[in-house]
């Protein structure tokens, strides 16, 4: 990006913040519903110091990380298996097609029947949300590896194991990664929704309970933190992707 463009893209959010701050102070918007940026920052600081924010943040992140870790491994394994074996695909594909469209938050009550109202039901809903986009992308990735690469491997007489390790898996990796990125986004939505209704901690709970008590500044802190988590996760994943898939041009 050129210097001028970079300036503009730093300037535009700053301008927005300034306009926001001024319009709240000038009374153009209702203070009961919209908190000024300065107020939000003060609330953020207070919540950080008091330990309230770290507690909620830790709860949400813990659920996302645990659920994601539990969901991603079986998703990749099943996806690879489906991609490599037509019978497996024939069996599993309709099941996935049937379950995938259900909003995962809708099965939270069911999961609470199985796992109780504690942490495990939330972790399970994240795991299930992560599972689907990853399994779908993994087998799509495997199935769409360019035919010519398989021809090359076969023409050199490569063993099945080598074909998988050196051709099929790396060939599918960019698509698998796209699935992982998609899954993280979905997980973030799902965990916040789950915490709205079925938790006593977490960023979702913070937003919802603050709204119920009309603690608008705290609610905005929750929104700010969610936005920050999303942004940081995207940056982190891009970095991991850059290292894991060095052959991809930007």
């Amino acid at each position: 990006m050129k210097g001028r463009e970079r300036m503009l893209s730093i300037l535009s959010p700053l301008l927005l913040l300034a306009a926001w701050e001024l319009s709240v102070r000038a009374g153009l918007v209702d203070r009961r519903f919209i908190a000024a940026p300065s107020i939000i920052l003060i609330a953020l600081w207070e919540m950080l110091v008091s330990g309230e924010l770290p507690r909620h943040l830790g709860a949400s992140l813990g659920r996302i990380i645990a659920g994601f870790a539990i969901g991603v491994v079986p998703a990749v394994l099943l996806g690879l298996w489906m991609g490599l074996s037509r019978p497996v695909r024939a069996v599993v594909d309709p099941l996935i097609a049937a379950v995938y469209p259900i909003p995962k938050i809708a099965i939270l009550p069911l999961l609470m029947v199985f796992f109780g109202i504690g942490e495990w039901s939330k972790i399970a809903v994240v795991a299930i949300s992560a599972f689907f986009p990853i399994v779908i992308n993994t087998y799509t990735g495997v199935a769409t590896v360019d035919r010519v690469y398989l021809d090359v491997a076969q023409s050199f007489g490569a063993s099945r194991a080598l074909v998988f390790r050196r051709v099929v898996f790396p060939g599918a990796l960019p698509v698998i990664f796209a699935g992982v990125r998609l899954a993280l986004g979905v997980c973030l939505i799902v965990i916040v929704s789950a915490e709205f209704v079925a938790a006593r901690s977490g960023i979702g709970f913070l937003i919802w309970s603050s709204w119920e008590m009309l603690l608008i500044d705290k609610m905005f802190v929750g929104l700010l933190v969610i936005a920050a988590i999303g942004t940081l996760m995207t940056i982190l994943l891009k970095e991991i992707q850059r290292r894991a898939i060095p052959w991809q041009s930007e």
Partner: protein
Amino acid sequence: MAEIVAQRLSKRFEDGARPVEALTDFTLKVKQGEFCCLVGPSGCGKTTFLRMLAGLETPTGGTLEVRVLDATRPATAVVFQETSIFPWMSVIENAAFGLETRGVPKQERERRALPMLRKVGLGQFTDAYPHQLSGGMKQRVSIARAFVTEPQILLMDEPFAALDAQNRMLLQEELVTLWEETRTTVVFITHSLEEALLLGDRVVAMTARPGRIKQIVDVPFARPRNTRSVRASETYGRLVVDLWNILEEEVMRARAGEQGA
């Protein structure tokens, strides 16, 4: 020692409702150390023949024998038309892939791939990834990958078709030099009559689908061959026209077939 004997070879694809007769009654012998070029209209089954030689398709009729005597070297290696080097491997990993499939340890295979990469002018690019290379460089990697395994038969399927004219000339010259060092048996498929005459010892002209052999032209140019003086020669020009006279009818038939389909 390696030679190819195809007798009354045929291949039928049972794909979908209408089976396609790709190759029929195809009889050809390619001798040890011969550079044999196949030309013909698109869809004449020349690629099918090459894929059968590579073990990627099985014949549905007749016999195809690939006689090789050296069990320590692979029978065939293929250079494909489109970009077929793996995007996820560096240049040297790509060039060494054939050795990797034969279980050669990493150090050993890179030691053997490096001189070949130098020969095709990629000594400085061993650690680059394909997306950083031009089309011509990618095809050089592909050629290196095939040569590194020291195959007894080299199969090339329009390897220069996707390149611009100048790059194609460069690679043709390089291929002649490289090949004359090894004198591997080659089956080379092209749609360019000029290329076939420039590179080959014999040019096999094929009919429209179902492909069979129409005529075999012996190429008179001596080895080692200087492609530039061949291009400048009168014989070359005449042979191109002769070959076109043989093929024109088939190309028209193939086109009529396409329009009818």
